């Protein structure tokens, strides 16, 4: 009996957590979409600074990693395809797995490591040093001032980064294609593009959009919920990273299932 009680209370805790994430995202959405019509202008400059940090500065490491992932995918796919003499399918295998799954996912993981953790650390530090309180006493809403620009930046940047990641992955695959599978570079790219339908790219982008919302909400919520001192900021950051990875995978699963069953018809 106690066992079921424990399951019950952790499910309740989980739902409450998702509830607070949704509420935070909802308030940020209010300040982004409705606030500007009520005389509370959106802070474009802050959003742009966040987009620069979370998006543009992530490009080098994202490019490198997704290039390698593309190459790894090609090697792994070719290992099996070679046995059937179908090595030329390596291009479509890489293109499909990148755009549908690994592009959005790897991008999300990198952004969690770079930005999700940074959000939690930044807001957590501000919380423990009373800076959040200071904003409130100055009649500046912390969600509007700190969280909403992060949402705007992430929701714009994650799909962009994902497109770039897809491209870099295909580029990584092409290295194998050209060296080992008798492709020319352009033929490899054309083979990749031929394998892709708009649907594949779009499902990936929808997922990446959701990942962006998840990462921002978790990072900001963990930061804002920090109490105590500096060591708690570290703990919040860790929690933000672990929770984000878990929730991103969960969101990924839900949307992949959704697209799978929708795609049947």
């Amino acid at each position, binding site marked *: 009996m106690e066992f079921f009680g424990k399951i019950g209370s952790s499910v309740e805790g989980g739902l409450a957590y998702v509830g607070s994430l949704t509420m935070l995202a909802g308030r940020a959405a209010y300040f982004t979409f409705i606030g500007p019509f009520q005389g509370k202008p959106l802070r474009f400059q802050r959003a742009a600074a966040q987009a620069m940090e979370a998006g543009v500065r992530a490009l080098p490491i994202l490019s490198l990693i997704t290039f390698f992932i593309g190459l790894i995918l090609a090697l792994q796919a070719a290992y099996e395809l070679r046995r059937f003499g179908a090595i030329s399918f390596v291009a479509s295998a890489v293109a499909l797995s990148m755009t549908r799954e690994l592009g959005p996912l790897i991008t999300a993981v990198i952004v969690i490591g770079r930005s999700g953790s940074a959000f939690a650390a930044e807001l957590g*530090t*501000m919380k423990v*040093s*009373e*800076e959040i*309180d*200071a904003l409130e*006493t*100055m*009649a500046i809403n912390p969600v509007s001032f700190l969280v909403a620009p992060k949402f705007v930046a992430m929701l714009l940047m994650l799909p962009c980064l994902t497109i770039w990641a897809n491209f870099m992955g295909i580029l990584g695959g092409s290295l194998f294609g050209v060296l080992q599978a008798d492709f020319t570079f352009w033929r490899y790219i054309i083979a990749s593009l031929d394998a892709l339908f708009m649907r594949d790219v779009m499902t990936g982008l929808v997922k990446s959009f959701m990942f962006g919302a998840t990462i921002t909400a978790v990072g900001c919520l963990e930061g804002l919920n920090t109490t105590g001192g500096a060591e708690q900021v570290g703990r919040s950051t860790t929690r933000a990273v672990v929770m984000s990875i878990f929730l991103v995978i969960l969101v990924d699963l839900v949307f992949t299932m959704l697209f799978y069953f929708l795609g049947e018809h």
Partner: protein
Amino acid sequence: MAAAADIFGADTSFDGPMISLRDLRVSYSGREILHGINFDVQRGETLVILGGSGSGKSTLLRTLVGLEKPTSGEVWIRGKNFSAISEAERDEIRKRLGMSFQGGALFGSMTVGENVALPLEEHTKLEPTTVEIMVRLKLDQVGLSGFENFLPSQLSGGMKKRAAVARALAMDPEILFFDEPSAGLDPIIAAGIDQLILELKKAFHMTIIVVTHELASAFLIADRMVLINKGDVVALGTTEEMKNSKHPKVRQFLDRIPEPAVAQELDYLQMLTEPSTKSGEGRQGKSR
């Protein structure tokens, strides 16, 4: 009577008590911290809230500026019930308040100038050049001229506090709150902060609320004092009245007499440690 208005368009004609507390109770997770606080603060008055650690004085201050919600009772600020009005109205009142936090709470990613400019940029439609002038003015007032482009991390403890005061002054508040203004500062710097508070009081006729446990500073700046102990108002009066008070808690606080329980604990600790110390004269000297 024509309503007076300042440059921000806010009504400055209110002449009732600036702050009025009615049986204010605040609880944290089921535990009551403040058990029914009552007092008024008049315009232009400096009230010092005294109390030991854990007395509830910080909670009282946080409730006054609206960072904590009362579980029951009322906080009236400028004739408005702070906890019964809408968020928008509360924000309007908050623009008339300035708060200097214990650690300064300056935004680390912004320069001192940007910190001071922030409330002006958020709440007024002043031109950037005007904002710049006002920032310089506020920094002059606290003795930090020329530090606009420094980051808070480049300032010393006392300078950080001054910068925080400049930010609190940015909107020309009617009520200024200080949380432990001299905590963590050396006596000379702390005296400088006291001086600053006195100057603000004299020059702008501001209502000032200071939370502290520094007695010397309290007696220097206060018009009236309130002593909080374990969530209750023990005594409230002018500095003279407090000095002459016979109330045991007031005497204990002002004469710095340790709690009997604490004294007993020390004896107990001494009893425990003494047999094990071999012949430590130095230790005896320390344990007193």
